[in-house]
Every structure is written in C-alpha cells, then in structure tokens.
C-alpha cells in the first residue's frame, strides 16, 4: 500500500469550454502532497468537469501538473498510468466480475501480454491487502454487482489503491451512504491519504466538516474561496452562494 512518493497537484489557469459554455473558467488550484482536499460548490460549479479535465476525459487549456508531470494533452489511460485515479458519481465497478477480479484488473495495467494470457494463479499481495483495507476480505468471490451500494464505492476506492494511484480523485464517494458507511469511508480516506494525495468532490457538509483538511469552493467555474473548513465557512461570499442555502438538500 505504499505509493513510491507523495506528489501534489498544481493547476494553473484551467479552462474547459463546451460549445461556447465555459464550465471551468481559469481555475488555479494547489493541492499539497498528502492533503485531503474537498471540492465543493453548487451544481454546475464545474467540480466534476475539473476532475474530467485532470483525468483527460475532456479537453482543457492551461496547465495541470502532478508532481513534475504535465497531464494536459495526454490520453486517459496514459494519465491513469502516471498514478492518477478517479471514481465516478455512480459506482463504476464491473458488475459481472467478482470483487477479486475487479481488483486484479485494476492492479494489472502494467502487465505484459504474456501474463495476461495466463490465469491468475494466486491473489497478488497488493490485492489481498486492498481487500482487507476496504473491508471485503471475506467476500472476494462475490459478484461486484451484488454488493451493497457502499461496498461498491469501497471497491472502487480499493481499485484505485491497487492501481497504485498516488492522486485519488473521488466524485461524491459518500452519496447515498448510510451514516455508519460514511464514517467508515472517512476513516478509509484518512488511511489512504497517508501516502497519497486525495481530492474529494462532496455535497455532504457534515462529512466535509469531519474529514476535510482543506476545502476549495468553486462557483460558476471559478475558485470562490479556499482554506481550512473554518476559514471557508466564515467566508461571507461562500455563505452567500453556497452555504446560505440549506446544505442538507444540496445533493
């Protein structure tokens, strides 16, 4: 479970435009190595689009550097191989494959064709470790599609771990989770952030207060405010556009 080194994310003047609509409008963002950064903002603020741009899904201008490497302009799978992993709002696991198979595939992007052509003889160490970390060690053979919602989200995080992602971009990881599941997910985030940098998009204010180390508020494609939870909460502009509305109903 050790990333080789901790790297930070450095975004400069990021712009994403869809048919004349500017979804991300000149964002500068620095996430320190090992941080748990929460990205919040009203719907349409550009949070997911920002993650899409960082992971190569949508075209963007500006600069996104992870460690010393420029990410913009690379293919999705190349960026993934550089150690950038993400989850999606709806859990995207391979439902017809088992938990173990899901993790094994996630762990195998660097495998040779020769090793792909053969069967898995034993459970790779990093997969076994991830099974324990995400609490699914007792059900490696269960089809991912039959997991409970929260477990699917954990499986996704587990897939990022074995993928050896050193930057985790999580899109609403606790949406739809029960209270206990949120606690477990938060504890999981704290564990994995020991040797990784984590960025979380989240609407849940209670979850944010408990687990965020730093917060960035986006609004209309721009950074509105940034700092610790307390600083952001005290910012009148944030209260106006975001926290002013009842946070409980935001999702």
């Amino acid at each position: 479970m050790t990333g080789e080194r901790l790297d930070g994310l450095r975004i400069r003047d990021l712009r994403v435009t869809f048919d004349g609509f500017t979804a991300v409008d000149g964002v500068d963002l620095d996430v320190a190595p090992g941080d748990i950064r929460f990205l919040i903002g009203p719907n349409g603020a550009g949070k997911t689009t920002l993650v899409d741009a960082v992971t190569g899904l949508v075209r963007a201008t500006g600069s996104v550097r992870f460690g010393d490497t420029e990410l913009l302009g690379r293919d999705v799978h190349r960026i993934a191989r550089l150690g950038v992993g993400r989850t999606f709002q709806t859990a995207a696991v391979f439902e017809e494959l088992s938990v173990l198979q899901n993790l094994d595939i996630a762990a195998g992007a660097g495998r040779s064709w020769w090793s792909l052509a053969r069967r898995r003889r034993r459970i790779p160490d990093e997969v076994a470790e991830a099974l324990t970390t995400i609490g699914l060690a007792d059900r490696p053979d269960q089809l991912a599609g039959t997991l409970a919602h929260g477990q699917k989200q954990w499986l996704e995080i587990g897939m990022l771990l074995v993928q050896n992602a050193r930057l985790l971009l999580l899109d609403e990881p606790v949406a739809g989770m029960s209270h206990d599941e949120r606690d477990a997910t938060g504890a999981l985030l704290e564990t994995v952030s020991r040797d990784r940098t984590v960025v979380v998009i989240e609407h849940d204010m209670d979850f944010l207060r408990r687990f965020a180390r730093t917060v960035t508020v986006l609004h209309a494609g721009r950074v509105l405010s940034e700092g610790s939870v307390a600083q952001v909460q005290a910012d009148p502009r944030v209260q106006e556009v975001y926290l002013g509305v009842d946070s409980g109903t935001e999702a």
Partner: protein
Amino acid sequence: MSTVTAPTGRTPDPAAGGRRRNLLPGAGPARAAAGFALGAALLFAVAPLALSDFRLSLLAKYLCLAMVAIGIGIAWGRGGMLTLGQGVFFGLGGYAMAMHLKLADAGPGELPDFMQLYGQLDELPWWWRPFASPWFALPATVLLPMAVAFGLGSLVFRRKVRGAYFAILSQALAMAMVILLVGQQGTTGGTNGLTDIQGFFGYALTDPVNQRMVYFVIAGTLLALLLLARQLIQSRYGELLVAVRDGEERVRFLGYDPASVKLVAYVVAAGMAGLAGALFVPAVGIISPAMIGIVPSIEFVIGVAVGGRATLLGPVLGAVAVAWAKTALSERFPGGWTYLQGLMFVLVVAFLPGGLAALVGLGRQRGDDPDRRRWWRRRRRQVPAGVGTTVPVEGAGTPEATDGAGLAGARTGVTA
C-alpha cells in the same frame, strides 16, 4: 460452471470454497477434462459410427460453422463486439485454401479450369501465384484474415466506433467483399465461386475414406480451438475483455487502452473464422460469394445467439443446431426456413438473451452477459442469508444486513 448462485441447501464454507475458486476461476479442470473427453468421444467415435457418409460430411460442414461461432462467442459474447461480417474472414480463409487446391488440381504451370473457360487470361494473375505453394497458402488462410482484422480493428476501435455502428460497418465489409468477388469473375470465379475442387493435398476428395479424414481433421481442429478459447476466457485477458465489454471507459481510467484489448479478441475471432473457411472448402468442395456474404454472416451470429454467446460451448452447440435445423427443415419445407430462422432469432433475443445455455446452466459462470440475468436468476439471488450459497453473500438482496457486516470489516481494516 461455478456455483455462485446455485442453492445447495448447506451452510457455506467460505474458506475452502472461496479459496479454491480463486485459484481456478471458471470450471474445474477435472470437469473440463471430462467434458473434453466426452466431446472427443462423440466426435471421433460415436458420430463416425452412427452417421452415414453423407450425414458425416454434413456434420463436418457444421463443425466448420461452429469454429466461426467460437470466435464470435469471444468477440461478441465476451468482448461485446457484434461482428456481423465474419463471412469476410471465413471467405478469406476459404478462398485462400480453394485457390491453392484449384492450382494443385490444375497442375504446375496450368490455369485453373474456370479461368480457361471465361477468362481471356494467358497466364496466372500475380496475386494467385503465391498460393501455388502450400507453405504460403496454408498460413495465409489464418494470417490473411487476422491481418485484415488487425488493419480494420486498428482503424475502428481507436476511433471508438462501437455498438450498432461497428455492426453495420462489419456488415458493409461483407457486402463489399461479395461485390468485389462477383465483379472479378475472370480471376475469382464470380458468383459461382471456386467450384469442383477434386483433391486435398494429394487425396481425392471423391473418395469417402478421404472425406472421413477431412472430417477428423475438422473435428480435431474444433477441439483445439475450444481449448484455445477456454484458455483465453479464463485468462486474465479474458476477465479484462469482459471488463471492457461492460465498462470500456472505466477500463481506460484504470490505465488500459481498451482498443488493444478489443483488437486482440477481434483478430483471434477472425483467425478462427479463416481457419474454419479453409477447412470448409475440402469438406464441401466449393467456396462462393453466397457462402460469405451478409446472409451467412448473420446466420453465424444467429447460431451463437441461440446457443448462448457468453459461454464457451453455447456458440458451438448453437451453430451446429441451427445449421442442422436448416438442413432438416429445408428438406421438408423449402422456403419456410428463412422465416423460422428469423422467428427463432427474435424469440431468443427477446426472451432468452443468454441463449439455450442459460436454460441448461452451461453458462453459470462469472463474466456472463448482464442481460442474461433473467427473472428466475434474480429471484434466486434473494434467497435469505447463507441458505443457498457456497460463497458468503449474506443478504445479497437485503442491503441493510450487508452494510453492517461490510462496515465492521472496513473498520477493522482501517484501524489495522
């Protein structure tokens, strides 16, 4: 063949059961070996004894179609690529073999009979010449289709052409190939194709003994392809292929290039179709555009769909069954077959997406197609905690129960 959802009525033994199946995903090797031996006995002992020469040569033809079906099962069933144009690869293999056999029939330096008949040709076209050598022609029956599939697949998959667009494109290719063949009558035999093939590497195909030999070669090849397909499906690549089928974009975010994953399956399927075409020629004595165009290409797919596209044996049995039914019913109701075939396809797609394999449980393995989870299987999943499962899926149908258990696990994992 795993028992993930099979009610056993016993308390599960997670440690033993789970562990063992991790090491050996899919069917156990003992069971697979038994099935393989049974198949070999049927093909090599029972069929030659029970069937007349005529029926046996028909079976040889069906088995060739079954080889195409194995490939489609991989590309479509496991990889999600609806290949409606496998006739192209079947045809490339078939024509490569037929060209060699025609040249061998004609003898050194002579033109094949049809070229003398309607060609104004004085000498062999340049692209026919290499096929005089078996050392070129035989590998070409497999490598030529694979090369074409590689070229086409490289263009298509990287551009993210998929679904119906891919199906239509592959079908258009089958159309184009037929038009090309028919248009070049002087050098390809046109609509008639390459007919009246007499010999197969020195053996006269008119001799029933040699026809039997051809049958055995075909049966052996089919078994070998089944082994290859089984290895492919159970390998890590096979799991990855299913992952690409079910979530191409997700696979990309894991650091794979799905285009290469699909390309491999597509090329393998093309190679199998080419080999099938090559063996079809000595079995039937002819290859013509009518056997490789759109209609036969669709018929390949129907056999696979009927049998069960995501399984190993389903496509083979489906292809043989549909081909056999076609012969049997066309003998009795000429003209009615086409409608029946269409009806069968519609019924299977609408009511039995997993094919017949879903009925007999052939396909009860992981990685099967999502839409094969029919109502009776879903209901089985809701069997109460721990009652009917060999793996601990307690409360698979009751999220609350599972949450608690998983959570405890997550906590211990986190604090460890």
